């Protein structure tokens, strides 16, 4: 239940305006809560006095079974003037569809954004039974506070059994915040999802830098929540004959809800193609020896119409920006072709690229781990081979 400390409350009314359910009213100089309260927690962070708190009791197993439906957060991004679901949204949609079918339940996609949102019918074409569209001018870009409040409200109202997020930087910022607010079990960065005989979500994820896999369940809390690693699962097939249901969800959000303010956005414009959705990636490691040699790697990437990426080692050396780092503490990629140039292939790197369809590795060290997983491994000096390779490709193309 929502507890209001009447000694701290100064009847400012911010909680009342922040409540999506009209469950709080200021009366007799103190906030009062009524039966419409869903414990979504939207009011807690808004109160300048810290007068609000939620006491949650553990839900019984009997009550857990009342939570139904698979939900995904379909993260959107700005592409030109349009705000549309990211590729990862379609990847978790395919998984969500599979889980929902197994449970015999509905699949809902939750979308947050502003007036620029488009392409939502595509979520239904790709597997969602319905789209819950949360439109608000303050949702035009991601904020931890704003998105947590809206997702928590949806969960409190809809009571899903499973809620999935993409394990993108924003997804991994949002999911734990929501989990803590709603008191939910959360499993990070899953690479495999299933349903057991009790109808529970079974989540498998790499740990210890990819050295081991762990299978995890959330037996006591609903929804069961997980972030799902991007570029591991195939995107859902599009079927335009599927019915489209888009429901608008009213959003109650004020500036007081959001405690961070954007000062500046710095886009790394130097490299055109982003690595998380690139079909071909040429990736450089410490074996490239000098940042000047990256020109060669970049030239190869261009020749192939691919993107330049790199290992954590060269990011930490400052040769390329973090947004181009492949691996456990960077981005997980799954291109059609991954060419590793002078990368030894530490397990933390390999977990970030092993779902690539084809892997070519060039490394001086015949024992480099990358050569064990490469479809074509070349033991040799990349710096000597690359210029010749670029010439050779040029020759074939013309």
């Amino acid at each position, binding site marked *: 239940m929502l507890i209001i400390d009447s000694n701290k409350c100064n009847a400012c009314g911010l909680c009342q305006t922040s409540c999506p359910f009209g469950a709080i009213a200021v009366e007799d100089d103190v906030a009062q809560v009524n039966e419409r309260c869903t414990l979504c927690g939207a009011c807690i962070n808004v109160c300048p006095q810290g007068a609000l708190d939620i006491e949650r009791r553990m839900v019984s197993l009997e009550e857990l079974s009342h939570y139904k439906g698979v939900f995904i957060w379909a993260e959107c*991004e700005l592409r030109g003037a349009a705000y549309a679901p990211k590729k990862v949204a379609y990847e978790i949609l395919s998984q969500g569809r599979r889980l929902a079918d197994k449970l015999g339940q509905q699949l809902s996609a939750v979308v947050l954004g502003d007036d620029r949102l488009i392409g939502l019918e595509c979520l239904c074409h790709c597997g969602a039974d319905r789209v819950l569209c949360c439109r608000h001018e303050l949702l035009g870009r991601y904020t931890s506070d704003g998105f947590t409040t809206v997702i928590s409200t949806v969960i409190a109202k809809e009571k899903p059994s499973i809620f999935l997020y993409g394990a993108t930087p924003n997804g991994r910022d949002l999911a734990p915040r929501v989990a*803590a607010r709603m008191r939910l079990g959360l499993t990070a960065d899953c690479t495999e999802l299933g349903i057991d005989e009790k109808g529970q979500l079974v989540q498998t994820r790499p740990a210890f830098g*990819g050295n081991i896999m762990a299978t995890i369940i959330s*037996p006591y809390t609903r929804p069961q929540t997980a972030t799902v690693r991007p570029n591991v699962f195939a995107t859902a097939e599009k079927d335009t004959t599927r019915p489209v249901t888009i429901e608008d969800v009213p959003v109650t959000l004020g500036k007081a809800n959001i405690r*961070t303010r954007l000062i500046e956005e710095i886009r790394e414009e130097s490299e055109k193609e982003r690595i998380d959705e690139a079909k071909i990636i040429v990736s450089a490691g410490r074996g490239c020896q000098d940042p000047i040699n990256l020109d060669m790697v970049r030239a190869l990437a261009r020749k192939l119409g691919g993107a330049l990426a790199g290992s954590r080692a060269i990011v930490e050396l400052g040769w390329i920006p973090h*947004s181009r780092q492949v691996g456990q503490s960077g*981005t997980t990629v799954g291109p059609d072709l991954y060419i590793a140039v002078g990368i030894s292939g530490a397990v933390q790197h390999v977990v970030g690229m092993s779902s690539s369809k084809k892997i*070519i590795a060039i490394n001086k060290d015949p024992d480099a781990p990358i050569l064990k997983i490469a479809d074509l491994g070349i033991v040799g000096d990349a710096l000597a081979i690359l210029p*010749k390779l670029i010439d050779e490709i040029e020759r074939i193309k013309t």
Partner: protein
Amino acid sequence: MKIVVCVKQVPEITDVKVNPETGTLIREGITSILNPFCEYALDHAVQLKSEHKDTEVIAITMGPPQAKSALLRCLELGADRAVLVSDLKFAGADTWATALTLSSAIKAALSDVNLILMGKQAIDGDTAQVGPELAEILNLPQITYGVEMHLTSSKKRLRVKRETESGYEVLEVRLPAVVSASKGDFIRRIPSFEDVLAARVKELREISADDLDLEETELGLRGSFTQVISVFPPQQKQGGIKLEGLEPEIAARQIAAYLREEQFI
């Protein structure tokens, strides 16, 4: 200003293997280190301290008694004092139980905290969840993946440059707040012999479950919402052809032929 840095001791992960027969972790002979991202968080704290003299940096960790060595490392790197939150009852905590215990320990052991820093993730669990969970429990705003942070002139707000998928963004937040850190753009001073000696006499306080305002059912495995039901070694992707001892020109031709065969060119 008072900065708390939450840190974690982790195994040197490249050594960790699963015994394929028992399915359990082989822990023998594995060295423990301070999680690299926690070191970065501490670097940011020390950097802020160098910019604002009246700053105190306190390192805190939840872990077994041997996690003290991670705290010692923090003290050598520039933390002023440290708190070890240790109890057998904390064993088996998932990220939720960890965040709850840490938040309770921060409330119990420290007052008037302006900034809580932590590494963006630990290299063993790799969840990146404890920071946001802790922030929510403490009702504080959060900024994740910070690479640069500065106080505004009023010292009431913090400006944080954070990594995003397409580059960076700069956010401003009113303190107190929780910020998770990535590697910053500064060079860490290697602790001198004097730093190491000085660290040995800095305050290192230990607190246990009894000092926290939490029920026993909220701690460790019992207080965890998630349960690990099995661990196993990952399936290795099988490699293909490995070519050795080729002249660069021949190697280049081999690669080009492969690219053509697979229709990449």
